[in-house]
């Protein structure tokens, strides 16, 4: 009886570990490089400390037309942070995976106006995301469709 109980406990633990790993794999499908519908930028999503973050890795127009220098976060409400370069800027922050092909609890930053919005990411298929930024309730927002980029392997010099 004691052996049976221990065996059941062990099997339950194994099932728990398998389920957790499966959950992690599903959550990590978000990792990759994505392109918003405007084509103005490319965003690389990766994982830090269990949450997901997206940083701008490419800009179609990398230079500010006024200064002819790389674009910076000139609309940031924090004046001391306005020299932060946009290339490398984490515009998606703090997303956590739910079990419905959705990543929630995160925010999206719009460098064109310096505003931060609540955001939900939904994966409609393996290469398509619905990124919905909203204020207060999800009904008061806008959805953009992002496509996954398939990158060629880099060659070592």
């Amino acid at each position, binding site marked *: 009886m004691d052996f049976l109980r221990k065996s059941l406990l062990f099997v339950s633990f194994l099932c728990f570990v398998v389920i957790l790993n499966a959950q992690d794999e599903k959550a990590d499908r978000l990792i990759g490089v994505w392109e918003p519908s405007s084509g103005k930028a490319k965003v690389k999503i*990766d994982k*830090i*400390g*269990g*949450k997901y*973050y997206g*940083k701008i*890795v490419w800009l179609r127009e990398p230079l500010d037309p006024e200064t002819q220098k*790389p674009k*910076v976060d000139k609309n940031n*409400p*924090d*004046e*001391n*942070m306005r*020299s*932060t*370069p946009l*290339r*490398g800027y*984490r515009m998606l*922050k*703090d997303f956590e995976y739910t079990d419905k092909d959705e990543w929630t609890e995160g*925010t999206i930053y719009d460098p064109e106006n310096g505003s931060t919005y609540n955001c939900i990411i939904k994966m409609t298929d393996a290469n398509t995301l619905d990124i919905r930024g909203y204020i207060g309730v999800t009904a008061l927002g806008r959805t953009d469709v992002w496509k996954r980029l398939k990158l060629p392997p*880099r060659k*070592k*010099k």
Partner: protein
Amino acid sequence: MKNDNISYHYKGLIFALSLTVLFAVSCTSTTMQQAQLKAETTAMGPFFAGPNSLIAEINNQESSSWVEKDIVSEKIKEASLKSISVDLIGNDSLDLSMFGSVALSIVSQDEPMTNIAVKNPIEGNGTQIVMDISEEADIGPFLKSGKFTLVLDWDLLDDDFREEMSSNVLMNVNLKITE
């Protein structure tokens, strides 16, 4: 009638005294202290031109990152940034002239990622740089929790195929500590 008045005033005095004692007990004294937190951020290569993230996981409950070893994270009531400097370490060929900019963020399980410092552009060479700090970022909740992650984003000007890159981050902070 006179006795009623005395009784009334006596009760009022007791009530006032009780409130005073309650107030005194609920107030805790705090002290201001300057402190330094040192962390090593690392990442495995290769590294490609553009933003590259070096990370330090801080857990002051296990091993203190405070230069002043008497700092107890749970006693931190408030914190503000005084200055942040970054030092490239570990490899003689690593130099500031290889980078265009650097930015520092802080994040924890319970707090959203917050940008706290930036230096753009990076001019000159050498290995150490002082960053421009955010005046609005509230780092108190991160330091109080004792567990957080520092993310240092270096903008590399050209591909670099070294196996590892490390940088020391030194944060000078003002702390309000409960006694």
